[in-house]
């Protein structure tokens, strides 16, 4: 074993982390090499010296300050799962609210005209219900249906209501 390699491995030798085979080899070299043995002794002395450096204790309020800073950290609750989708959720709620508002608002002008026309038709239909109560007229309608329209006489339009004659 050469001096250079022994020097490189002296730290592992001194801290007891060297394998047994290498350790025996190093010890053998140290026995026959005063220079390496002297260096090993110096390293050993340095190790002892480093133990003289005092250990300091953290100041009195150290733990309290750490706990205070930890407590100041934002806590993540179960609702935090939604956090990344907050804008999406807000948009969805806004869209629903808008839909409900549109559906419930009073009808505007085109819708009003259409509704008025429908109401008039319904009123006429209700007014014609009185015709159905006229039993004689209803029974005679079968006889009218047996009439065969002539070729030069057009079929009466369905809109031609018999009740109009009554009016």
């Amino acid at each position, binding site marked *: 074993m050469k001096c250079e390699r022994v*020097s*490189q491995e*002296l*730290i*592992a*030798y*001194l*801290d*007891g*982390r060297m394998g047994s085979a290498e*350790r025996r080899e*190093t*010890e053998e070299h*140290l026995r026959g090499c005063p220079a390496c*043995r002297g*260096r*090993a*002794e*110096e*390293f*050993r*002395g*340095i*190790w*002892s*010296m*480093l*133990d*003289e*450096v*005092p*250990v*300091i*204790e*953290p*100041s009195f309020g*150290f*733990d309290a*300050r*750490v*706990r205070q*800073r*930890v407590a100041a*950290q934002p806590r993540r609750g179960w609702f935090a799962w939604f956090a990344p989708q907050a804008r999406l959720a807000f948009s969805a709620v806004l869209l629903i609210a808008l839909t409900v508002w549109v559906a419930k608002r009073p009808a505007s002008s085109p819708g009003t005209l259409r509704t008025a026309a429908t109401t008039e038709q319904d009123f006429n239909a209700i007014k014609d219900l009185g015709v159905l109560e006229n039993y004689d007229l209803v029974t005679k309608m079968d006889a009218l249906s047996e009439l065969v329209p002539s070729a030069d006489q057009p079929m009466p339009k369905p809109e031609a209501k018999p009740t109009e004659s009554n009016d």
Partner: protein
Amino acid sequence: MLDVKAGDDSSFDFLLTKYRSPLVNFLYRMVRDRATAEDLAQDVFLRVYRARKEYIPSAKFTTWLFRIATNAALNSVRDNRHQRMEVSLDAPLGDEQESVPRDLPAREKRIDEHLVERDRVEFIQRAIASLPEKQRAAVLLHKYEEMDYAEIAKVLDCTEAALKSLLFRAYESLRVQLAPLVDRSAPEGAGEGRPS
């Protein structure tokens, strides 16, 4: 740490109690300022707490903890390097006024002056402080935290071979710097295990 990850705050208190002292001492020896060391230690604990949900036990907790601490210390040292450059070479080593010795005093003079315990400790601290940051971190983790090579290599993000080389250079530098203080009456027969 897994309990902390699961939301057990009392386990975090346990980690705080167990590791505050080694962490503050490690950081103090790295940055050489007590107040800065404590601030950095608080930051480290806070980072541990913040990262608890993402913690994966792929390595020992101490490896993870000291990796965070080492990065914090190296950043702090680099940020404040210009301040240290302005400190006098002969200024006493203290919390507010510390320096990095760039030249060793004559052996005879230092032996006479530093036989007093306080001065001797100060001299040793100066020697440690004079090491380059990465070498210093390697020595502190190796000597004071008693980490094995694999752990230190992970903390410093290097190979074990590179770490051994780093440690050798660091101890060799300390050997030269601390030579005036080496007790020549140390017992013969090196290699009888780790010195206590």
